[in-house]
């Protein structure tokens, strides 16, 4: 450990300087996101295969989804991406208080999304659209309708789980911002948090049209 390294706040011992640390942690997050893409990729592959096998059943099943709630949630998430990006900007300028505020708004928007999602899930439960032994969609004799809801719950559920993890991380970083941890040379954690949050948003940007919009005009 060289002497100057020991003095820079926020610098881990294995790095020479903060620039190297920021480069390394950012690359690490991108690799993590690549891993996430492959993880969700398995679900998207399953979706693509079953959609091409059963186009009519999937189109019919998507009518059970509430496009207004889905659309509202899409807007909420896009707006939360904006507040997240503003939070990153504030961190780069070392304005810890602003960081805190933007992260708080992002956190609230994420929770709003999850609450709306919970209402949607509840509707599905009432309509008997939860796959498995209890599945009882009226008039749907085609088993592929159930496959649509298997995918719907797996994909949106996995996405929601990532939102919950993101919410937990936001709380952690809000505490850090309260402690005035960030300054013009040390803002990496917020930037990386931003990458994660945008990724989770982008997953939804793909899920919304695939699940809610495709086949709606039929």
């Amino acid at each position, binding site marked *: *450990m060289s002497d100057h390294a020991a003095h820079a706040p926020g610098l*881990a*011992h*294995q*790095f*020479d300087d903060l620039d*190297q640390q920021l*480069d*390394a*942690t950012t*690359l*690490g997050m991108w*690799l*993590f996101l*690549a*891993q*996430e893409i*492959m*993880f*969700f*990729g*398995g*679900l998207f*592959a*399953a979706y693509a*295969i*079953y959609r091409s*096998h*059963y186009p009519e*059943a999937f189109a019919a099943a998507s009518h059970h989804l509430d496009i207004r709630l889905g659309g509202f949630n899409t807007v909420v998430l896009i707006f939360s991406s904006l507040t997240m990006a503003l939070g990153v900007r504030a961190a780069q300028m070392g304005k810890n208080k602003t960081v805190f505020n933007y992260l708080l708004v992002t956190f609230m928007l994420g929770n709003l999304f999850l609450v709306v999602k919970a209402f949607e899930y509840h509707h599905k439960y009432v309509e008997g659209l939860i*796959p*498995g*032994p209890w599945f009882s969609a009226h008039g749907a004799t*085609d*088993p*592929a309708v*159930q*496959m649509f809801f*298997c995918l719907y*719950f*797996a994909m949106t559920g*996995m996405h929601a789980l990532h939102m919950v993890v993101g919410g937990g991380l936001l709380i952690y970083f809000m505490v850090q911002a309260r402690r005035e941890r960030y300054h013009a040379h040390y803002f990496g954690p917020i930037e990386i948090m931003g990458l994660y949050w945008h990724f989770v948003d982008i997953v939804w940007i793909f899920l919304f049209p695939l699940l809610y919009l495709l086949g709606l005009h039929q």
Partner: protein
Amino acid sequence: MNAALAPPPSAPPPAETPTHYLNANYGFRSWMFTLDHKRIALLYLASITLFFFIGGFYAVMLRLELVTPAGDLMSAENYNKSFTMHGVMMVFFFLIPSIPAVLGNFLIPLMIGARDLAFPRLNLLSWYIYMAGGMLTLYAMVAGGVDTGWTMYTPYSTTYSNSHVMVMAVGIFINGFSSILTGLNFIVTIHKMRAPGLTWFRLPLFVWAHYATSVIQVLGTPVIAITILLVALERGFGFGFFDPKLGGDPILFQHLFWFYSHPAVYIMILPSMGVVSELVTCFSRKKVFGYKFIAMSSVAIAVFGFLVWGHHMFVSGQSIYAGMIFSFLSFLVGIPSAIKVFNWTATMYKGSISYHTPMLYVFGFIGLFTIGGLTGLIVANLGLDVHLHDTYFIVAHFHYIMVGGAVMGYLGGIHFWWPKITGRLYPEGWARFSALVLFVGFNLTFFPQFLVGYLGMPRRYHAYPEEFQVFNVMSSAGASILGLGYLIPMIYLTWSWRYGKLAPPNPWGAKGLEWTTPSPPTTFNFEETPVVTEEAYAYAQEQETEESH
């Protein structure tokens, strides 16, 4: 191969003993909360050795059962559980982490002149994740076992098996994240932490091999994770992803499973190839032949590896056209593999070869890997595979790669870097002897399986027709020799940790930054960040300068 975690307990070190990573501090907590990549490597060394011997125990049970044609030692069900646990332990908890998590963890920062990996906490976390997954899988084992095979094919695993499938599957799911995090850590470290002057094409080939491996770990492993999750949703909640009754397709499971599990084979063999590249140049005292080709062939194997998964499914209902394409792509993997083998032999050509134990493992690796690779071409052949699929020919083929290749490389690497890891020399005579025992035992175990498989003996049965007995007795006899070959190094390496001769910093006269550090290295590896001014393996140059003096 050493279970002894603690440094030699020679209480207060004598005054002249320099401080290094092993005696920097003592005690249980200093190991459980260590962020030192070298200590984490040793944690992995101890735990993968444990899992290796558990997996090995099941192999012994299988070979005992197969001595006689009748299924007399174990019931069919227990036999199924035994080969499942053998496969799961060896694949997920020994082979995949073996070289990367032990040697890679220990050596990559040393080789590139860094103080540690980029993310030391993540590194420690990955060991805890690994242990959590391993313990859960062990629990599935003692709670009654799992009988699905390590492949967990649907619909058996989702619908019909009454064993502890979910516990084991969750164990494998958790363990996968350890693999992902290790790979991520290596990629970032190799990109961002290299010493000044250490350009990409000056990197040791060991590092290149680990880079390629890490790419597979990061991009492949999440796919098995989501696959296991879908199996869990189907088994637990009746979601019908792979259930034909609900419009699902069991073949989709196989596609997703092999999309990871075929590249996983390259996670096992690529690091081993990296080890061989290091060893062959050192003990030939010659610059490696075709550096860039060996480096790029690692990357090529990683890339091709993602495009060949369908060759596991030639007879399981995949379309014939898909089968033809997968067959062709599988042949392509032979090209980078052959490039490596030819380049290693060309490196030895006119080199001054010395026959130390690590080099004996290199010879073993090259021979056995070549047999495993060439039989791979046979089973990649669409027509022949219809005959050979699910026979002992396949079992023999992949054991030549996984044991003959990956484990030989692992043991060669452990011996080569043992002086660096422990600061002690291992007993050369015993080590050579056990390398020979391993080679003989391995071939006697698995070569007869090629023959009996070609004659039609299927995998995964505890009983077989009498005409196959002679091959199976040979195989079981070989397995006992092989087992002995693993026990001997276990004993003398443990012994040498305490009683071996003290090792100089560079006992082999090898090139590479790791040999410029003391044996064992200090906690932060380098007093000052080294500056690299020459290419890797500059052995020939050294000779020339010696001659010119």
